[in-house]
């Protein structure tokens, strides 16, 4: 995996644009379901970018009736364009979304 965040961001964008199938549903409605997804992510190789995107349920656009997006997610660092959830720890665009979204 590339180490430069800009390069990784481009790689992720390309994968999503190419139609990578990710586990968008089910959305973790409870903390137990949320924790179960985190457990799956922890079992991945930290460099397994595709695995993170699939299990995280990434999409490259706002999602749902409320048009949720990374921009409002608590884990999103605006200036670094970075997802600070330790299990993900990847660069992201503000208009993206994943099912680990929390506000």
């Amino acid at each position, binding site marked *: 995996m590339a180490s430069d965040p800009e390069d990784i961001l481009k790689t992720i964008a390309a994968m999503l644009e190419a139609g990578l199938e990710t586990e968008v549903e089910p959305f973790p409605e409870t903390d137990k379901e949320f924790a179960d997804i985190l457990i799956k992510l922890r079992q991945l190789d930290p460099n397994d970018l595709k695995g993170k995107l699939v299990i995280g349920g990434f999409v490259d656009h706002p999602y749902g009736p409320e048009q949720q997006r990374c921009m409002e997610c608590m884990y999103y660092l605006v200036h670094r364009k970075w997802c600070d*959830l330790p299990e993900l720890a990847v660069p992201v665009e503000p208009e993206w979304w994943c099912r680990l979204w929390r506000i």
Partner: protein
Amino acid sequence: MANLLWLQGGACSGNTMSFLNAEEPSACDLVTDFGINVLWHPSLGLELGENLRRMLDAIVSGEIAMDIFVFEGTVVNAPNGTGEWNRFCGRPMKDWVADLAKVATFTVAVGDCATWGGIPATAPNPSESEGLQFLKREHGGFLGKDYTSKAGLPVINIPGCPAHPDWITQIVVAVATGRGGDLTLDEFQRPKTFFTSFTQTGCTRNMHFAYKVSATEFGQRKGCLFYDLGCRGPMTHSPCNRILWNRVSSKTRAGMPCLGCTEPEFPFFDLEPGTVFKTQTVMGAPKDMPTGVDKAGYIKLTAAAKAASPAWAEEDLFVV
């Protein structure tokens, strides 16, 4: 001179440890500067066995005046309402509490267990524990909701797990120096002087709360602990960030979430797995909003705050 008696029911002695760490004023100051005579205390009392029994009997009979009755720990009623699981000086502690509360000028509950039952009263509550005048949020407790001490006040509740040392000694001094009547209590009988503001008041991470930057691991020097790590600072009434612990810090300043230990529901969610140190959410939004904030307003505020957040909010800061 004000006579003080301190007894422990279903307790871990945490509030005694806290009391002995008091600085403003210290436990020694109570005696030397404020004329408090400690009749007996589990860690300080000299009398043992029959001598202690005689003293307690003398207090109950009125032979020895008791100005301040401090109780730490739950009132244990098990098994089957007898209180036999917590015997003291020849009889169930709950019987002593019932008799002593009748003759106390002021009755003070120290710590969560004595105030609302705390951890021992968590479901399924095998010790049938309750606080002096509350069981969790339910008014009543062991002494009943109509109880008042001889001074005409209900039980003065100083919650916390443990209560901060100086909350204890400052209330004791207020009572001992004749200012007990000036105390104003909130709906849970907590002194308003300590329990009107929130744990968040004075938190050094408030800028991260404002800009919606989250801490994601304990001890991080950036980020608010409310969003992910279960901090209850915005919903908990306590002065933990105004009257600092050991005069230097607080849990949130050290990067650990507030557990809400001054509120009647503590420990929250009955300690179900996954509920401690984790913000409980419904569809990605916090189940418990900061006091006075609704969900729609919270979402709007988040969008605006994120958009306005400065770069420094994402960097490590010295917030201890």
